[in-house]
């Protein structure tokens, strides 16, 4: 009856809303902070962020817990961080990286983020889409014959798979 507010029934095929911070971050802070952001981006090994190497994410100690847990799971053999956390396809892939690369550097630099880290809707949808990419056959069954074309959110049951 009541839906979990974290949105197990997220309509994956609906329009993807712009993550809230995107609305203010560029306008308010871009001019002032892009410099600082880039600085951190560089410090944090900006170049490796563009590669598939999970250690790119590890440049921030904040990501340490996820890294440690990811290494122990079965996905470590088949999916890097970006395997789940960046969009599929060349453009989507680098677009996600650009957005998240900026967002994370920005957040890290300014300290403007809440802990514990919680995945944003924007990135949850990306992760979910990636499950479906690799597990297409299963996804078919899970989504199968759903009323109103509503997909079954993988993450409702499998939030822990990555790490």
């Amino acid at each position, binding site marked *: *009856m*009541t*839906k*979990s507010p974290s949105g*197990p*029934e997220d309509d994956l*095929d609906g329009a993807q809303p712009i993550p809230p911070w995107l609305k203010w971050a560029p306008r308010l802070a871009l001019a002032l902070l892009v410099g600082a952001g880039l600085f951190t981006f560089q410090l944090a090994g900006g170049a490796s962020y563009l590669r598939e190497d999970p250690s790119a994410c590890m440049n921030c100690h904040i990501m340490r817990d996820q890294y440690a847990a990811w290494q122990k799971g079965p996905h470590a053999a088949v999916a890097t961080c970006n395997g789940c956390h960046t969009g599929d396809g060349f453009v989507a892939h680098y677009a996600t990286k650009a957005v998240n690369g900026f967002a994370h550097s920005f957040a890290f630099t300014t300290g403007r983020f809440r802990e514990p880290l919680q995945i944003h809707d924007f990135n949850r949808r990306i992760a979910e889409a990636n499950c479906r990419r690799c597990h297409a*056959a*299963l996804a*078919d*069954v*899970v*989504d*199968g*014959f*759903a*009323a*109103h*074309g*509503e997909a*079954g959110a993988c993450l*409702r*049951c*499998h939030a*822990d798979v990555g790490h």
Partner: protein
Amino acid sequence: DIERKRSEGRQTSVALARLEGDLDDPAVWGRAYPLEYQGYLGTVDHERTRFGGSDALPRTPTEADPRTSVAASKLEADPRLIRMWAGYGFAIDHREERGHAYMLDDQTFTGRQQKPQPGACLQCHASIVSANRALGGDDADEAAGAARLAAMSFAEARTHVDHAIGCIDCHDPETLRLRVTRPAFIEGLARLEAARGRPDYDVNTMASRGEMRSFVCAQCHSEYHFEAAGPDGSASRLVHPWDGGLRADEMLAQYDAKGFRDWVHAATGAPMLKAQHPEFELWSEGIHARAGVACVDCHMPYQRVGGTKITDHHVRSPLLDTGRACQVCHPIDAAEIVARAEAIQARTIAMQDTAMNRLMDLIDDIARATRADGGETERVIAARRAQRRASFLIDFVASENSAGFHAPQEAARVLVVALDEIIAGTRVLGSAPGASTSTRITTSNAPQ
């Protein structure tokens, strides 16, 4: 639209054969969907858990009752139930529930058939979609068909159905989508939603997929009663008492407001109510429902078969399969998962036991006071009302089939309200006959 095309594509990729023939027969569906069918057939199995599951005692079939096994008797396990329900069919025969495969036979041959039962019973014990449609006139109106079945005796209605629950009861044969098919449920939910400020609610078009994963079960696993209907009042219309909400005391308030009673208690003359399998209502108040966890998530979890995964159609106790049913969300040891559930259940059973004992005392006290007063004095009438209310609330917990697991704190709250009623009844009896009392109980509104 694209989404529809995609899911149609999926459907053909999954079905191994076209669905054609007698759609009331699950075996026909089984040719297209053998994995789901095989799971479905598993509901004949018997396996116990500490507080639930399914078991069967072998019995010698007779002509009157050809069953070769029956579930354990709840009345033998707890004879207090016989006194609780004195004068009602349930005091004759009431057993543990078991797999879906048995639903039609267990109903047809229950000892309760010694008393006349209405045709409406079959809505929850048979594959009834086709019967409702067939009797529903030219436009196959299922509600109208159900009303016609409700005007028949059980024996007559029984000739209109053949199967226990089948695929067609939960699935639209065209799209295979979940749908609810019981007119009483569709109406009951619409009344509930209307009371919540959502008029014209149509569950089949307005519920989300996640909600449907509980509603298909809620059609049957919920509290009901029969209202007199039809021109001569002889039909038994199946109604869920949800206008005022789903909580036990909300349903009770509605029964009180209507002055409804199921039967008159044989030992005390109280106007009684029977609660039946309120799994849906109790679950609704629990943390799992709140977190969006549906009946199907636990009772029909996904199952890996070869390279793919399917919904396990062997509906049963999740404690027989915690790996799939619980551990995806609770990644802890299986033994610990079961122990947590059992600890909750054991606490519920202990509380229920206390409440049952006190209810027995109240029944004794009322019977004694009636004898002492030589009839229906004011205090006797007031105490009967307490009995009626306490009995329904305790029954709500006792007849709910998860031993409180579906919402532990809510089950306990219902028992606290029940004990409050018992205290009120006890105090009113403690006073001398006819003396005025300061308790909350009044005889006004008390159905007789």
